[in-house]
């Protein structure tokens, strides 16, 4: 059968995604594994991770990653599938946490097996009530209206019945998750618990995604009028989507509250909402695996950038990864790397010989990275002003890099990389909290340019 235009167009996307060489091998191998085996592999990897007996700090990050994965997974129902821009979502996270706090502590002390389902159901109803708004407003307007729900939640827990909800002081001394006489007390236990809850949610949502409801949600996202004309009651489906999202968000809230042992109003601010959106968008809205991966990547990434030592690995690692992924052919890549190293060593030696005080400072990195770069980067004794100038130069260079012709790019890349390293060692690493924000921003920009559909999302077209 001759190949038609449609086939060519469709296969073109496949071909582009598949790439060549080892990437093609990976791509075809990956395509052979079905959804359920993949979930099983991911859960297995999680179980193995839990067995590693890592320190409690890392375990806490892992639990947070799973909680954000759940949150992102829930948001995906409303935003990724049904296309409803629900900015009230963080209220349901808070609702779940406070729901657990009230039901499973203080005077009630209900078992988790009772309280979590109650919170789940109540959140679904609360979510559906908020979803009623979507009948009258859509798009940006829905976003503005639902944003108020998150704010209202904060005001309620801050001010209403401070005896029962704790007000600004929050609620503490919550019961650990307990049922049938057993209870979860260790971080490792919570890690496993969160892992199982997440896996169950992923499985159920996958079954829902491939059912009539999932299809109808996506149809509503694609074209509401056409969906309505094709027998889909769009109003009911939008309410359902926001309700389901709320319920999943609330489950994440119960795990969060039980593990943290306390809840505060500040745990559920608009900042958290933005972070959850970042997880979903980075991972790939519309994809279950993407939402989960986004939650993990953003949580772990945030943790890494806030510790100077890890931030160094992330900084140099991502630059190397970006170069390996983007600079072709291999000879050019090798030339850029060698050129950068040689440029640094030469400049360091020359400047050091002429003007010793200019290289008198030591790089901000410690450990083997610091050792490795100490004779390469130029760091003067008092590096603040110097670092600021380099930072501005770096911005100019990066901008120039995006504007110049392809054939000059490799040449400009060498000084850019060197300036980036010098700037990092002399200035950026010294202010970890500000640098963390810059780094997260840069990573988000780079990822969204490279993969606008998110890490595991599918490319979507708007109008063709």
């Amino acid at each position, binding site marked *: 059968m001759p190949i038609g235009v449609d086939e060519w167009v*469709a296969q073109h996307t496949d071909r582009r995604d598949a790439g060549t060489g080892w990437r093609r091998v990976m791509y075809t191998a990956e395509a052979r594994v079905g959804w359920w085996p993949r979930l099983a592999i991911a859960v297995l990897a999680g179980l193995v991770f839990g067995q590693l007996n890592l320190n409690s700090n890392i375990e806490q990050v892992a639990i947070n990653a799973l909680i954000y994965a759940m949150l992102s997974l829930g948001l995906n129902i409303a935003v990724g599938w049904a296309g409803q821009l629900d900015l009230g979502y963080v209220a349901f996270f808070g609702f779940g946490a406070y729901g657990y706090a009230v039901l499973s502590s203080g005077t009630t002390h209900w078992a988790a097996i009772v309280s979590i389902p109650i919170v789940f159901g109540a959140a679904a109803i609360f979510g559906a009530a908020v979803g009623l708004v979507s009948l009258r407003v859509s798009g940006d307007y829905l976003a503005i209206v639902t944003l108020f729900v998150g704010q209202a939640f904060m005001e309620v827990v801050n001010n209403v019945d401070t005896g029962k909800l704790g007000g600004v002081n929050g609620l503490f001394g919550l019961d650990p998750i307990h049922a049938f006489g057993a209870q979860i007390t260790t971080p490792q236990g919570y890690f496993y618990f969160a892992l199982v809850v997440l896996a169950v949610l992923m499985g159920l949502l996958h*079954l829902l995604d491939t059912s009539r409801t999932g299809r109808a949600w996506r149809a509503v996202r694609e074209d509401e009028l056409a969906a309505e*004309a094709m*027998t889909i009651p769009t109003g009911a489906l939008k309410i359902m989507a926001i309700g389901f999202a709320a319920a999943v968000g609330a489950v994440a809230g119960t795990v969060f509250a039980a593990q943290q042992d306390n809840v505060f109003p500040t745990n559920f601010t608009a900042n958290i909402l933005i972070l959850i959106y970042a997880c979903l968008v980075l991972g790939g809205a519309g994809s279950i695996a993407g939402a989960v991966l986004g939650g993990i990547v953003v949580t772990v990434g945030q943790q890494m950038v806030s510790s100077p030592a890890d931030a160094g690995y992330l900084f140099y690692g991502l630059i190397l990864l970006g170069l390996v992924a983007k600079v072709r052919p291999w000879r050019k890549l090798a030339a850029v790397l060698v050129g950068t190293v040689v440029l640094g060593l030469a400049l360091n030696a020359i400047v050091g010989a002429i003007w010793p005080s200019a290289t008198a400072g030591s790089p901000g990195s410690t450990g083997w990275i610091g050792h490795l770069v100490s004779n390469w980067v130029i760091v003067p004794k008092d590096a603040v002003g110097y670092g600021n100038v380099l930072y501005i130069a770096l911005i100019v260079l990066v901008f120039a890099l995006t504007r110049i012709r392809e054939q000059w790019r490799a040449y400009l890349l060498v000084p850019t990389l060197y300036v980036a390293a010098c700037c990092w060692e002399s200035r950026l690493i010294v202010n970890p909290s500000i640098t963390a924000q810059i780094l997260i921003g840069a990573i988000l920009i780079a990822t969204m340019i490279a993969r606008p559909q998110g890490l595991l999302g599918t490319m979507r077209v708007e109008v063709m």
Partner: protein
Amino acid sequence: MEGHAPLLELDGLGITFGGLRALTSLDLTVAGSEIVSIIGPNGAGKTTVFNAITGVYAPDEGDIRLAGESIAGRPIHKITDAGIARTFQSLRLFLNMTVRENVMAATYGATKATPLESMMRLPRARREAREVHALTEEVLSFFGERLAGYRWDQPAYSLSYANRRRLEIARALATRPKLLLLDEPAAGMNPNETLEVTEVIARLRDELSLAILVIEHDMHVVEGISDRVVALDHGVKVTEGSFDQVANHPAVVEAYMGRDPEALAEA
């Protein structure tokens, strides 16, 4: 036919947008297995008729009856459930869903499994899923080679223009309609494809015994398929009858071509 209500009956239908009378006391009937074409210049109100029938606009006056039962004022999806499916003039496919999913989505109203049943894959959900799959294959197969099997798992945006039009018809068929409304099915197609559309529309009537109301500008298509033609201008029915009667009606000629200058001079 005595005692049988026609399948679709518009009775004195009037629609007003602010001060603009889009449709004025329009009477129109479509019988079972009949193909009726609506023609008229741009802005005559043809698509407004479709939007009124499918519930996008509620009629300001008059009534719309499907098999004798009034459907005016019902929600859009209920009207489709009742047996009226449509295609859109400016294609409105679910572009980022696969070809198969586009068709499957249109079976929502005919299936009943709740989300819980779907998640648990309970018997009803499984049975419905099988039925939906079978229906999808059947509906897509209606277009034979053109929407052949190996294209069904590609996103709809990868389809060519003509295939998007075909998919819109397939999607409408998946709602199991009694009456199909086609809004310019041949727009933007080349002569070969236009000929094919004409055949498809005739087959829809002959093989699936559908009644079809079609808006079309291409007079070859209108001539080829119509059992009856209705001409609209400025929201008013100018005339109706066989293609030859309508095409040669002075008011239709005037609406399309303007008045004979000599006649104007005399007037």
